[in-house]
C-alpha cells in the first residue's frame, strides 16, 4: 500500500492510500478534513480513477475534468491538490 499525506497551505489535510498493479491503480482512497459538496463526488472520483493506467498527466487532467463537470464545491483543497497527493503516493 502506498500512502502520502499533504497539508494544503491555508487549507486542509489530504491523505491518499493506493495500490498499483501491472501499471494500473487497483485501489484508491482519498481522505482528510476538507469539505466537499456533493460529498458523493469523492467516491465517484475514486471509482473512476481505479483501473486508470499510471499516467500522471492524464490522471491530473481527469481529476480537473471530473470536478469541473460535476461543479463540485471543495473547501480547503483544490483539484490540483488531489492530483498532487496521488502523484506523490505513486512515486513513493
Amino acid at each position, binding site marked *: 500500500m502506498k500512502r502520502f499525506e499533504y497539508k494544503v497551505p491555508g487549507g486542509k*489535510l489530504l491523505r491518499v492510500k493506493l495500490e498499483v498493479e501491472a501499471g494500473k491503480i487497483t485501489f484508491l*482512497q*482519498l481522505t482528510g*478534513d476538507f*469539505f466537499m459538496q456533493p*460529498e458523493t463526488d469523492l467516491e465517484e472520483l475514486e471509482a473512476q480513477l481505479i483501473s486508470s493506467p499510471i499516467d500522471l498527466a492524464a490522471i491530473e487532467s481527469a481529476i480537473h475534468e471530473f470536478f469541473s463537470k460535476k461543479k463540485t*464545491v471543495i*473547501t480547503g483543497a483544490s483539484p490540483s491538490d488531489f492530483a498532487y497527493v496521488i502523484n506523490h503516493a505513486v512515486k513513493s
Partner: protein
Amino acid sequence: MDLKVNDAYTNMAVDEAIAKARGEEKAPDTLRFYMWKPSAVTLGYFQSVEDEVNLKALHRFGFNLNRRISGGGAVLNSERGEITYSVILKEDNPHVSTDPIESYHYLCQGIIEALAVLDIKADFKPINDVVVAGKKISGNAQIRRYGAVLHHGTLLVDFNAREMFGVLKISKEKLSDKMIQQAEDRVTTIRRLLERRIGFPEVRDAMETGYRKAFDAELFKSDLTPYEEDLVKQLRERYASRNWIYRR
C-alpha cells in the same frame, strides 16, 4: 431547542432530521444546543478511522466512535468539556452566502457574540474555526442537504488533554505546517480563559443570547415534532451502523 444530553448516534440523527424537516418546510429555522453521553470521537465525513483514531484508547475510555455527514476534522465530543450546537436554516436564506467561507463566517457570529457576553474576545478564523488570541475554542462544519443548510459546531468549556490526545491521532504534517510544537497549545477553553469553573447553564445562556444578537432573531423554545422524531428513529440506525462508521 434546549440543551439535551444524548448519545452520539441520536445527536447526529437529530441534526439530520431537523435539516430534512426544514428543507421540506415542516420545521422552522432551528437553533439547537446539545451534549454527549458517553463522550464520542466524531469524524468528518471524509476521514478514515485508521488515520484519526486510537481505538485502544477509545475503548479504554469507553467512548463512542461516530461519523458526521459533514466534512471537516475529527473532534472529541467530551461529555464534560463542551456544548455542541447546530443552526439549521433554509439553503436559500438570503443571509447565507453560497461562498462556503462567508457562510461559515456568518454562522459562527453567534459563537463570537456568545463569547463576548462572557467578556471573551473571539474572532472567526477561516476556514471554519473560532479562535481566542489565535487558539481554537470552537470548530464548525456545514453541509447543504435537503434544501437546508446544517451548521454544527462545538464550543470548548473545559479540556482534558490526556483524553483528547489519547484518542485522536494528530498528523505530523498538520503540526509542522502550523509550526506548533505542542498540539495542546492550539486550543483553549472558556474555563481556562475565565479562570473559574463556569457551569454549563451559564455557557448555554450566553450562547442563546449570542445567537439572538448575531441574527437579530426572536427565539422560541420548542422540541422535535412527531415527524422529526420518526426521522430520528430511522436515521439513528444508520449512524450507529458499522458500515457507516467504518466507511473510510
